């Protein structure tokens, strides 16, 4: 096993972040699925050695990870929050972080460029990060996680805020990394996203691992609940007209420059949405997010 936790707990004062978690993450891609506040980020920060366990133990590559910086070089971490110097260019920022792995400056720059190329950002590598779109920022974060050639990738909500095309591209990349022999732990609160990368999932809720194994078993549960999608686009009215003709769309709501859609058939909906974004026939789609209400409902059902 690449990651193993044994009765792992983490609390912040009176608040429990992670509660008596025992798990094992095998090589390949594993999805960490849970609503916001479930403990996904806490678990990832424990795995990357940024937090000390309050109780229990966690090992990565068979070694305790806390205060073990030698192991950090084997891990690539993509945090959920932005972590940039806006005045730096993409390549400067990635190269600076690669340099911390003991690589000389010239090699660090070359590795940064290769990683940026892998996430389709080579053309924008010399632009300042301040000028990057949300999707480009997500990709440059992925590049820094990948650049030093780690064996284990920890990706915290890597698809958050990406447009459908960038989302599809990133999912493809993550699958390629899994096929190339890397171990990837990727978190999300959207089942559809995780399902498109792997069938192996860990379900986390209120700091506890609720279920683990094959995604298809919880798939049916998810489908019983309507799925909400928030789309920020230039032509929201045209998109709404197109969606009205779709099967499974339950409701449409306009918000400030955005369209909020409830669908009973998320798979078909996302496929159609990606096709629309790629063709550009209904204007530019800037951002697609999904609130975790639907997943929350499933978790509530599971914990009953």
């Amino acid at each position, binding site marked *: 096993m690449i990651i193993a936790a044994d009765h792992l707990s983490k609390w*912040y*004062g009176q608040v429990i972040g992670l509660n008596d978690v025992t798990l094992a993450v095998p090589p390949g891609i594993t999805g960490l699925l849970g609503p916001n506040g479930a403990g996904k980020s806490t678990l990832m*920060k424990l795995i*990357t*050695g*940024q*937090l000390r366990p309050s109780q229990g133990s966690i090992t990565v590559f068979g070694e305790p990870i806390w*205060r073990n*910086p*030698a192991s*950090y*070089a084997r*891990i690539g*971490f993509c*945090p959920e*929050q*932005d*972590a*940039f*110097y*806006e005045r730096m260019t993409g390549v400067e920022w990635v190269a*600076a*972080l690669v*340099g*911390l*792995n*003991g*690589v*000389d400056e010239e*090699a660090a720059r070359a*590795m940064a460029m*290769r*990683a940026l190329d*892998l996430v389709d950002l080579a053309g924008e590598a010399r632009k300042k990060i301040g000028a990057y779109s949300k999707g480009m920022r997500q990709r440059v974060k992925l590049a*820094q996680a*990948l650049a*030093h*050639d780690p064996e284990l990738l920890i990706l915290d909500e890597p698809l958050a805020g990406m447009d459908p095309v960038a989302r599809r591209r990133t999912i493809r990349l993550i699958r390629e990394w899994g096929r*190339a022999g890397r171990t990837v732990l990727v978190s999300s609160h959207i089942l559809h996203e995780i399902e498109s990368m792997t069938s192996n999932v860990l379900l986390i809720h209120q700091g506890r691992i609720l279920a683990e194994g094959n995604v298809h078993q919880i798939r049916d549960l998810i489908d019983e609940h309507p799925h909400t999608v928030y789309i920020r686009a230039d032509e929201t009215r045209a998109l709404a007209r197109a969606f009205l003709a779709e099967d499974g769309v339950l409701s449409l709501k306009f918000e400030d420059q955005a369209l909020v859609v409830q669908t009973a058939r998320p798979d078909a909906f996302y496929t159609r949405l990606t096709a629309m974004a790629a063709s550009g026939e209904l204007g530019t789609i800037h951002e697609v997010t999904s609130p975790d209400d639907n997943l929350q409902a499933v978790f509530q059902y599971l914990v009953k």
Partner: protein
Amino acid sequence: MSPIHDQGYRRYPGERSPHGRAWAVIAAAGLRGFFRRREFLGLLLVSLFPFFVRVVQIYAAANLPQAAFLRPSPEMFRDFLRQQDIFVFFIAVYVGSGLIANDRRANALQLYLSKPLTRAEYVFGKLAILLAFLLLVTWVPATVLLLVQIVFAGNFTFVADHLYLLPAITLSSLVQALTVSVSMLALSSLSNSSRYVGILFAGLVFFSQALYGVLYAVTRDTSWSWMSFSANVSQIMALIFRMPSPYATPWPVSLGVMVGVIAAAVLVLERRVRGVEVVA
């Protein structure tokens, strides 16, 4: 040869430097970043004006009989270091205020500390940046002045008569630079705004001096000098240069205050420099 090129990631075949040297990467990146800024180079140049004035003084004393009264003395070196106080302050504010605050604002600490870099290495790398610049305006010009004296005098008599001078310059500069650097880093870790940190540092320096000034004005007693950040540094410098104490405060008290300030700063850094901010 296959016409299809491998598009996969190519592994780094070179050597990786051993663990424990990542602080040097942080320090080198910081030093390079500041040397690229024109306004900072201007500040460095201005901070060397007193050095050039002292060079002229030493030259005149060595070559013009009527300027013999300008002859260098150990006091001259101590006074030079005290004169540099104002530049130490400006450089500390310019360089130091953002060293950790900017990383906190950019949320970069969580990424740095997920790399093979310990918190101690991170702090040491940041400290090295500020220390290097402060020593560049204190220890470096003072040591060069000593060399200039030897060159213009054409002999080693002055240095031989005051063998303690080079160690005194070195120790004084280190005490001053270390106290200022560690305090500034601790303040920088307290906020996400470098401006606020700059104001906080200025407040610490000026308020402590003003407090001492008021108490001195009321009591006419210099034994309150332990309250002043800069008076404590002056007191220790006088001791190192084997000169009479400028204040009535016993030097162990001044030293104790400075050690206390450094200890408090280290404690703040230990609590604040974390990849994940834990609010408990």
